[in-house]
């Protein structure tokens, strides 16, 4: 594939950890090993803790892909989606070839951009997979 990419729509992500556990179970990662985890964007105090003061609160989530993630290389070669994007119950993620304008990820990215979403990536110093993009409005 030319340019494999995962687009995560943060407006849809519900912080359920299905993506992270799907990866962990499929690859039988050890107890303390997560290639992929969910960051709560809130107060910073932990899972599902919001920012702000009652009742003016704000909370969202973002799956973070560590460099342990192998982008499900074997699966995608067989034309399958990565475990994370496939199993997301919120359907917040799209996978595909960014170099192909008709691929699902290209189409979705264009669609969201046109709706006014900003498309961004985590900065290099976070040392995460560079193939992951986020969309948020």
């Amino acid at each position, binding site marked *: 594939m030319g340019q494999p990419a995962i687009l995560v729509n943060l407006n849809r992500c519900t912080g359920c950890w299905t993506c*992270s*556990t*799907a990866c962990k179970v499929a690859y039988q990662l050890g107890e303390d090993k997560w290639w992929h985890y969910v960051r709560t964007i809130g107060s910073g*105090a932990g899972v*599902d803790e*919001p920012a702000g003061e009652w009742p003016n609160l704000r909370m969202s989530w973002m799956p973070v892909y560590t460099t342990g993630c192998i982008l499900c290389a074997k699966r995608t070669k067989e034309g399958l989606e990565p475990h994370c994007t496939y199993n*997301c*119950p919120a*359907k917040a993620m799209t996978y595909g070839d960014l170099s192909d304008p008709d691929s699902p990820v290209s189409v979705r990215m264009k669609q969201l951009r046109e709706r006014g979403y900003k498309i961004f990536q985590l900065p290099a110093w976070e040392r995460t997979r560079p193939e992951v993009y986020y969309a948020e409005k």
Partner: protein
Amino acid sequence: MAEEKFVYTACMGNGCHEHCFLKTYVKDGKIVRTEQAVLGPPEGLRYGICQKGIEYARFPYLPTRLLYPLKRVGKRGEGKFERISWEQAMDEIGAKLREIRDKYGPEAVLVNTFACGYPANWTALHMVLTRRFVHTFGATASTLETVDRGFWFSTQFDMGAGWRYSNYDPRLLVGARYIFIWGSNPIGATRATGSTRFLLDAQEQGAKMVTIGLVYDSTAAKSDQFVPIKGGTDAALAMAMNRILIEEDLYDHDYVTNHTVAPLLVREDNGRLLRESDIIAGGDPKKYVFWNLTPAEARTIAARTHDFGTSAPDLFASPVINGIPCKTAFLKLKEHLAEWTPERQETLTGVPAQTVRQLTYDFVKNKPAAIWLNLGLRYYNAREAHRAIQLLSALSGNLGLKHGKLALIAWCDGWPVRMNDGPVSYPDGPENAKGDRPPVTDVLESFRKPGESKYKALLNVMGNPVHSAPGRQLWTEELIPRLDLIVDYEVRVTDTAVWADYVLPDTTTFERSELLVPLGDWAVLQEPAIEPLGEVKSPADFWRMLAKQVGLEKYFDKTQEAWLELRLKSKDPAIAGINPPLTMERLKKEKMVRLNVPTEPFDAFDYYGFVSPTGRFEFYCEDMADVDEAMAKWLPPLIHSPKRKDYPLHLMVARHRVFMQTQFTDFPDLRQIAGDEPWMRINPEDAATRGILDGDLVEVFNERGKVKVKARLSQVVPPGVVQMWFGYRAGEYLEGVPTQIQVPLGWGETQDAAGRKWVEVVANRWLPRPGEKVTWETLAAGRVPATANTETQFAGNWDVIWDNYCEVKKAAGGK
């Protein structure tokens, strides 16, 4: 190298939330993983998978998984067991059952029929075989954890039944322009899979999502507007909104006139609807009277008739007819709601008056507007809240719009389908069914009368009541000690199983066949993914072995698969109309077959209309008039009790979204997310006044006892509310368990006149004994035929799971 094979499997969490199924991959005889399962066209992806379904792949191999029959060797509750054989277990259990039957009668054997925690819930073969045992042995069946009363009461009296309106196709949400999520946390939480996606789709397509709730959960975080409300006050908010709809003429005239009891005249003398038979000799008791505008006169309309033809009913009439003063139900509603101004409700709910107006106008200006009202309003007054909220949908006319509607329990199964379960449940026909099904409160309360207790054995074949049911000490101190025999059939040693005399290992859904019918308009075959591990036995084998002990072997002669084949021989056109015929052979080849049902999403309100006596939405219900429950009203929740001054905090005993009630708390990955120990949340304001710092050990207490847990300061809860997780096992709490300090579930504490009347009304509406009138006394004293259906077993008391207060203080010994 062996390839991966797959089968379809009901998730362990498949129960009274979503009925999800999984695609299970197996390699070299071991489950490697589960993933999202997809139905065929046109339904495609209906259910998804959540973190629990993913982790479930590990369950058969966890050390806490039960593999062998156990016999108690210590005292009950110590959790000391020795491994024994099935033969020994069954011989000993059989001997005890026969002894109890001979001495006390078969109804002394209590069987727990609470299927909500058993996969695949109501369609599981185990559920049907349990009924078969009850009906042939003559046991007493009891749904020992009696929940969801707000739903069952309000649907019974507003719509005429509950079961029918429990189903809702979430695809209907996409097309709504406005959605209230009230008393529910579906997004990424209770409805992680099937429903979350549709709610988000609706939102992405422009629907405004408004959460009205107690705490800032994941649903609140995803909503466009979060309306915090004080616990147990929802009826006040809804009544204020209903009042605005009437006073400001924002209600849907046509819908209200044609589909609700609004125009029907109510007798002021006895609160019953005026009938033709009341005003004309020989008149029809099934015709109701309304007041026509021009010419001004009394006219009649039959039940289930929605077209007034050339008549135009006066919605606010108050005539005197044949000397009987009457008022329209609508006029009574208007008068009833008059005091519920936005300002009045604010004193109870904390919702600003201006917000109430904004919400009301938004709800009628952005049609179709749907209401997602699940089961989170577990307060004493849930019945009022549910009815008042449902009324919003009817008054606004949204209930008549395809994408409006009410999602109540919202099982997302699709079109209702019946398997051939009659002959399985009633092998000798319903008329010859033995067994008893008294009101749950009656069952539990009998344990409080030593010497009078009717029950000597408990077959806890499903459910985990000692863990989940509030009022644990009643179970451990009154119920359990009075039983001579306790058998638990389980997949792990739960907080209930530690009190059993025998714990027998069930198969997981990975180790047995099951028919998942209906599943989003499809019939899906669950095949075993692996051979049963250890000595676990499927329900077909369990019941066969047990039945043999009590001389009923002829009734339990089939394998799991043979039972399923019999269940498929249904006359329901949804199954019978499938070509080629739906058989186990066909299902084994194709794994899933589409049912013979329409392709458009199932809509219960469209399909059934209302099955109430009038055939209309009965916001005024005459059958409950004599206990002052004809219309939804304000009733204070238990947390408004004067005792609150000593225990000023509202205690919300909750489950973390990565768990499913008491299940999944053993899973290491999920514990990493939720917390490797039980904990509670307290708002920083409340913590500050109590000298509690983040991470301190605290005591959460009230007059019933105390629980010692770690406290976390959090803005998820408002000042005045604390949240504590209940799913961890008893030994994990440093002292006590959450259910010990909650008002008991199903015991007499929450019984009242309205509950007893409810049981009477339901029994008379639904029990198949023509000519016989059932009263609370006859129900309590004698038999309820085992054919009593869901409506009867879910009536009578109130599930006040969240209607609890407490105080919190720093525990002695500190952090």
